[in-house]
């Protein structure tokens, strides 16, 4: 029988994860292995349960996108004990995983923060009021926020005046963002830490007719975000390459299975998408 790889995903309601699944599936097909995907619906315990179950099923490798980077470790250790290599994707897990694929969210958060800082220096005279639409229930997005804070610290008079919680749900993010924008008529920049937050924020900015006064930076492209970039009020969006991450993870797993050497840390490059380079993403998000 062929080899079998299992992938434990966070959820399937965010485009980001869906694209990662697609990348992984494509790579698995190319490599001729079976890929089983499990959707843990944001529940850290469910991720553990799934890994334990896959261990029992004796799959050949496990890929996991961790919700709780600490809480996943025991399950990874179990897998290692059972001789099953684990590749972690996106969120950085410092455990018994054989390979880490993905993005250093903290660092990229800092990058987009620095990008924003530069924008503030050149366009806003070094001063800005910044709002944040976050998702407090998402570990990764909290990390991105921390990174961002570190990045903008380089401009002392840019300050975060308010943070609202979009709870990683588009319509709630929109409502929160609308309230944020009307609460702070002096906002110049709003940062969205993830895809639902960014979609909600873009919709809210249009709905509030604030596209003239507010600039948006954030994470994860979508058709809406591209429209915003075209319209000019979305300044920069961190575009990871989830498909690439998925593909890289499967390929790394294949190498592990074939006893080929693999890097411990595979970094998948991110792009900060602006008006200048948005063109090539149009085809993906139509």
């Amino acid at each position, binding site marked *: 029988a062929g080899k079998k790889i299992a992938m434990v995903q966070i959820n*399937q309601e965010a485009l980001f994860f*869906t694209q990662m699944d697609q990348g992984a599936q494509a790579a698995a097909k190319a490599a001729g292995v079976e890929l089983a995907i499990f959707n843990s619906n944001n529940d850290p315990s469910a991720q553990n349960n799934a890994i334990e179950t896959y261990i029992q099923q004796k799959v050949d490798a496990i890929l996991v996108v961790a919700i709780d980077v600490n809480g996943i470790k025991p399950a990874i250790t179990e897998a290692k004990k059972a001789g099953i290599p684990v590749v972690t994707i996106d969120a950085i897990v410092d455990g018994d995983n054989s390979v880490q694929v993905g993005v250093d969210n903290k660092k990229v958060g800092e990058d987009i923060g620095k990008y924003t800082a530069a924008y503030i220096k050149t366009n806003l005279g070094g001063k800005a009021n910044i709002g944040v639409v976050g998702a407090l229930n998402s570990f990764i997005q909290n990390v991105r926020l921390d990174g961002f804070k570190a990045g903008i610290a380089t401009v002392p008079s840019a300050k975060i005046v308010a943070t609202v919680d979009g709870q990683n749900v588009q*319509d709630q993010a929109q409502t929160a963002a609308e309230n944020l924008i009307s609460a702070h008529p002096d906002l110049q920049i709003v940062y969205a830490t993830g895809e639902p937050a960014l979609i909600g924020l873009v919709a809210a900015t249009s709905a509030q007719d604030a596209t003239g006064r507010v600039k948006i930076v954030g994470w994860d492209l979508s058709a809406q975000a591209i429209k915003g970039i075209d319209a000019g009020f979305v300044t920069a969006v961190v575009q990871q390459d989830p498909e690439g991450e998925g593909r890289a993870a499967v390929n790394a797993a294949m190498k592990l299975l074939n006893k080929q050497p693999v890097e411990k840390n595979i970094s998948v490059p991110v792009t900060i998408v602006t008006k200048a380079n948005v063109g090539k993403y149009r085809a993906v998000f139509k």
Partner: protein
Amino acid sequence: MELAMHDKSKAPRLPLRHLLGRNAGVASIAAFFIVCALAFALTTHTFLTAGNLLNVLRQSAPLLIVATTMTLVITTGGIDLSIGSTLALVGALSAIALRAGVPGIVVLVGGLSLGALIGAINGYFIAFAGMPAFIVTLGTLSVVRGIALLITQGFSVPIENDGWFVELGRGRLLGMPTPAVIAILTLLAGWVTLRHTRFGRYVTGIGTNAEGVRRAGVDVRSVTLKVYVLSGAAAGLAGLITTARLGSGSSNQGVGFELAVIAAVVLGSTDLFGGRGTILGTLLGALTIAVLGNGLILINVSPFYTQIIQGAIMLLAIWLNTRIFSPQRRKKG
């Protein structure tokens, strides 16, 4: 069916309560709403601006619409947990249909019908198969969101910004946001239905003694079925409005929406055990929730405290309602 104990007579007997009689619950939430609104008006400049108030109305439209029908559902002694999922499915499908060039009016009718169909399935299981509403709608919650996920494959589907469909979410009618106008009409219809039609009378009766209503020759099962159909259709309408407002449909919409809706209805003093419902109370309950969400952001509360404060204020409101305004209510637990 729950706690009776604690004899009513032990609570302080305010003359107020006597005057208010069975409207005590509504009076309580009205007072609470006014206090909240005043507090925000005094602490922020933005709160009372026309722009902000219209925002609140627009944002709360889906809540108001679904809370109206949820009031009927809860008054029959039932519950509908599947509304958030229905909202997502209808929202996502309507975005897909619009992109495929289906005319807006067809999408509108189709969305309402799909919602009604999901409601009919709930209603069939509850009224005809006699299954508990909580568990039936918990099941459809899962199934319907699964279908939304399957259909969108997790993608969020953007729609064009022009066309009248988008007006449903973003437009204005007679100076009011269109969603707010729709919500007010829904509330009005709900009020007439519950207070002034036979159907509404039977809804109340079923909540207190379904067998008694059946013995009065009423077709209890079809009344119950209809209540869930209305609930599903309202969720569909809310989905259409949400998609129009957001400019995109996705399976991620309306997560946890059912809890907000139920909280609004119960805040409004409708009895979760059935038999007593009030649309006016629901209006006030929903507005209280919306104003809280808005005001807490306006006064710049750290988001880490928002959940805590919202929960605590909800507890306080119900506590006031139960303790001071209408100790009667405690009887049903």
